[in-house]
């Protein structure tokens, strides 16, 4: 750490740090602690039972399935979009960037409603889907579609600035050295963005598993069939099973903590690979 001439007197510094820490403790750590305390209030047995009952297990399975489909699709889309935006110029580029951000600027409930309007019984494709016995709304496909919509920006947003900054010189170098398209992608482009990609995947995964609003609209809340973890928690809570609700909530809290730890590790790795100054001349 370099000492700056402009740095504040020690008392002011200590005060500012204290405010920041206090704020974090009050609004982040306390609720987190509350989740675990409440979850374990009726003992470890009740805690495990709440996680093991069939509806909870079904919710966990559905949540994992949703993430397992939504995250890889977003990785592919994110890479394609970031590549197109970062490495080429084409008409409509800015529009594409804006569109990618759309899910961020729309309330998740609205995102869910869009799908109901499209695929619901009274929706545009509703009659056709009903005639062919395809169920999307109030079924698993609807949940997955809504989750994909909500998580679209995560990977792409992470990669676009990275690829724009890196430019195309590395790819050109690989090209001139005789690499084919796939060799260039696997050996040069992907390694160059791997930490950014991993970061995007983690954020995307956390959101895919934790999404409530959009999924709530399209789910129909059929227990054991169309409830993901967040929806399951809501149901339990509304039925005054507070301990069980917090037990399941603690799973999502753990996911958040793991994501946070992994994120820190990735950031440390990224800075590590950029540091290490030149020694010899």
């Amino acid at each position: 750490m370099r000492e700056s001439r402009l740095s504040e007197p020690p008392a002011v510094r200590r005060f500012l740090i204290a405010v920041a820490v206090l704020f974090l403790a009050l609004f982040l750590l306390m609720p987190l602690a509350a989740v675990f305390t409440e979850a374990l209030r009726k003992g470890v047995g009740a805690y495990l039972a709440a996680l093991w009952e069939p509806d909870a297990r079904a919710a966990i399975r559905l949540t994992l399935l949703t993430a397992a489909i939504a995250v890889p699709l977003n990785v592919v889309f994110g890479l394609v979009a970031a590549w197109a935006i970062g490495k080429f110029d084409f008409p409509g580029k800015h529009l594409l960037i804006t569109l990618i951000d759309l899910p961020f600027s729309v309330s998740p409930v609205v995102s869910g409603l869009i799908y109901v309007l499209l695929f619901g019984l009274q929706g545009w494709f509703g009659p056709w889907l009903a005639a062919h016995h395809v169920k999307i709304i109030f079924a698993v496909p609807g949940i997955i579609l809504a989750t994909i919509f909500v998580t679209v920006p995560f990977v792409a947003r992470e990669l676009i600035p990275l690829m724009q900054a890196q430019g195309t010189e590395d790819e050109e170098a690989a090209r001139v050295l005789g690499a084919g398209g796939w060799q260039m992608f696997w050996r040069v482009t992907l390694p160059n963005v791997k930490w950014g990609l991993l970061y995007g995947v983690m954020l995307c995964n956390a959101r895919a598993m934790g999404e409530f609003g959009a999924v709530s609209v399209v789910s129909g809340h059929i227990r054991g069939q169309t409830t993901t973890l967040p929806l399951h928690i809501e149901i339990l809570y509304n039925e005054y099973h507070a301990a069980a609700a917090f037990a399941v909530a603690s799973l999502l809290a753990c996911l958040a903590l793991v994501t946070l730890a992994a994120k820190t590790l990735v950031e440390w790795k990224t800075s590590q690979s950029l540091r290490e100054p030149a020694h010899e001349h």
Partner: protein
Amino acid sequence: MSIEVRHITKRFDGFAALKNVSLKVPAGELVALLGPSGSGKTTLLRVIAGLEVPDEGTVLFDAQDATARSARDRRVGFVFQHYALFRHMTVFENVAFGLRVKPRRERPSRAQIAKRVHELLALVQLERLAERYPSQLSGGQRQRVALARALAVQPKVLLLDEPFGALDAKVRQELRRWLRRLHDEIGITSVFVTHDQDEALEVADRVVILHEGCVEQEGSPEEVYEHPATPFVYRFLGNVNLFHGRIEGSKVHLREFSADAPADLGQEAIPAVAYARPHLLDIDHQPPSGRPHFRATIAHINAAGAVVKIELTTDSGAIVNVELPHERYRQLQLRKGAVVFVTVKDMKVFTQAQSTLGGGI
């Protein structure tokens, strides 16, 4: 392998970066593409490499049309201005890259790759740093890794984009001499782009000067320096003093002085500009007889360096720069503010038409 480009035109969003450029590089030569930024020199290099597709014209390697060949199939070595080393690979892996991505039937064995990479690292004097990452190297070292990487695939042609542009002055000097030696050693046809006239004149066998997408002049370093074809080339290759005036009959009448006109410029009165390099001017206390000269006042003297640089103001208020050897300077005992006579030992006269047209080839 020889390179030839014929009538290349390349536009970017309506801006013509290259206008009908033709050029020949004989096998084994080291050629510099010299020009200010925006002159199209890098675009020309990238067209030769296949990294840009020309709108018109052809690129020939050994008299074979290579215009349609992709960068991948042209087998050229390209050294990028900012090296473009693969940051997640060690020096060894960077140099081995071109060998590793070859199709399986052409790919050398692991042992052969290792041997070749170590040979190349020895050539660029970086054997000890094989396991380092690019971020752990200095600029000059990175440059040499980039060169070794380009040479690994045994290219027929080596193309370098501002190879020393990002280095500090001292490393530059060393590296350019080293590049010259390396070229003499391996004899590969090489083209490098630079905006630094000293670099081009010192290193290259032949210099091609580009200006606004056109070739202004090409020739050996002596040729272009001693006989610049256009005022642009004269200005670009070194410091210069300008004198405006006109040609009438066999005389050039400039604002500061008159002299004999070069015979080939016609007999009518035409506007003209005379160019003289600072070292082609001399200073004396008395008006010398027989030589064109004019009166001026010494405005500034800089005696630090190989020559003494003197700035003078003419009677009409124009500024003239003169470079004198230290010996001559001491002998004259010049002082700031002194009124002296400037003698023109040699100069080059261009008519106004030539300067506005830029000469053009």
